[in-house]
């Protein structure tokens, strides 16, 4: 590209906006450093651009703290979206209620021990999405758990849970046990039940 006598408005403005191609910039930038006429026109465009920016800045009014409100709305929307997705999954695979019912029944019939979670002392703490901690024990959140349900006074039941039920709920083990026989097996797990008697989470203790 030859060095022009003076730059066009298009080039001057694109130079201001950092929109020149590398080839154009190679010629334009040195010219702008030495040509007073082009520097002056460039300054005019910069000044005008600044005035537009100032005008637009006055339009919004004073700032306000709305971030917290947005964070709350996002959380509500995400929960409702997740509930819809979970419900679609449940309809698709039909395991949700079956697992909930089997765990609830087993809680009555097969408890090895039951202990209530101490309500005081902040023993229940959300540690990350999908996992939560109760009494220092990490539980995997079960999909039909009610996210709005208080976990202030749940209880934990230790029981044998069929591997097949857990697999149907999306919880699988690696290395995968060999075929159907593996699915017939049970694992010892702590199941956390909420105040409504529905299982909230599961923590596998051992394969015994």
């Amino acid at each position, binding site marked *: 590209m030859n060095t022009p006598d003076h730059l066009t408005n298009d080039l001057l403005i*694109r130079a201001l906006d950092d929109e020149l191609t590398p080839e154009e910039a190679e010629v334009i930038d040195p010219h702008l450093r030495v040509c007073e006429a082009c520097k002056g026109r460039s300054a005019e465009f910069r000044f*005008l651009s600044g005035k537009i920016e100032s*005008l637009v800045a006055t339009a919004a009014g004073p700032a306000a703290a709305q971030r917290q409100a947005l964070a709350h*709305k996002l959380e509500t929307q995400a929960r409702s979206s997740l509930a819809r997705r979970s419900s679609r999954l449940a309809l698709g695979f039909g395991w949700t209620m079956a697992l909930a019912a089997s765990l609830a029944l087993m809680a009555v019939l097969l408890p090895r021990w039951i202990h209530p979670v101490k309500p005081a002392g902040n023993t229940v703490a959300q540690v990350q999405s999908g996992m939560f901690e109760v009494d220092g024990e990490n539980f995997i959140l079960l999909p039909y758990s009610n996210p709005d349900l208080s976990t202030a006074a749940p209880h934990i039941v230790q029981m044998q849970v069929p591997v097949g039920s857990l697999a149907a709920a*999306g919880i699988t083990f690696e290395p995968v046990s060999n075929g159907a026989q593996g699915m017939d097996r049970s694992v010892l797990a702590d199941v956390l039940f909420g105040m409504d008697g529905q299982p909230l989470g599961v923590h596998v203790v051992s394969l015994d």
Partner: protein
Amino acid sequence: MESVGNLAMAGAVWETDLLEDTSVQRLILEQYDREQLSLRRYVAFLGIDPETAFEIVQECFLKLQEHLLARGDRTNLRAWLYRVAHNLARNSQSAFRSSRTDFLADVTLAGDPPARSNSAEQDLLARERLDLMNSAIQALSPAQRDCLVLRSQGLKYREIADVLNLSTSTVGENIQRGLEKLKELL
């Protein structure tokens, strides 16, 4: 006997979704911190009152969450946000067109009050300059005005083109002609 340590939980669909939702919310709040003021200015400059501009901007970010959770395209989210804001603002204007006849009439009235240290005379001069600029911008074509306002918020030509559904070269022409016209008028 297999030890508990050899067990690895995997494939919990809802867990993945929850983790993804959290990551999406974090991404959105980061975008909000970066873009909300510029977006609000842009929407307000389109003639929307400040309170409605707040609502429109929040709506943009809620729509962004829906978009991301539906695994929408993540390239150039800034242009995506401005496009949604632009459309929401235009829809809002259509709904209230009968009560709002002057596109930019309220822009200066909605602005921050002048600093207390300014004298009344300085305030008046500042207002007059803003009004003059406002009148000059009103004389531009809508495309020139939109391009210049988006440019004033730091959008690149490619992003402006995405927001307004124009080609990059048309954006460049609108910006050039808009600035040339303003230079003549002021």
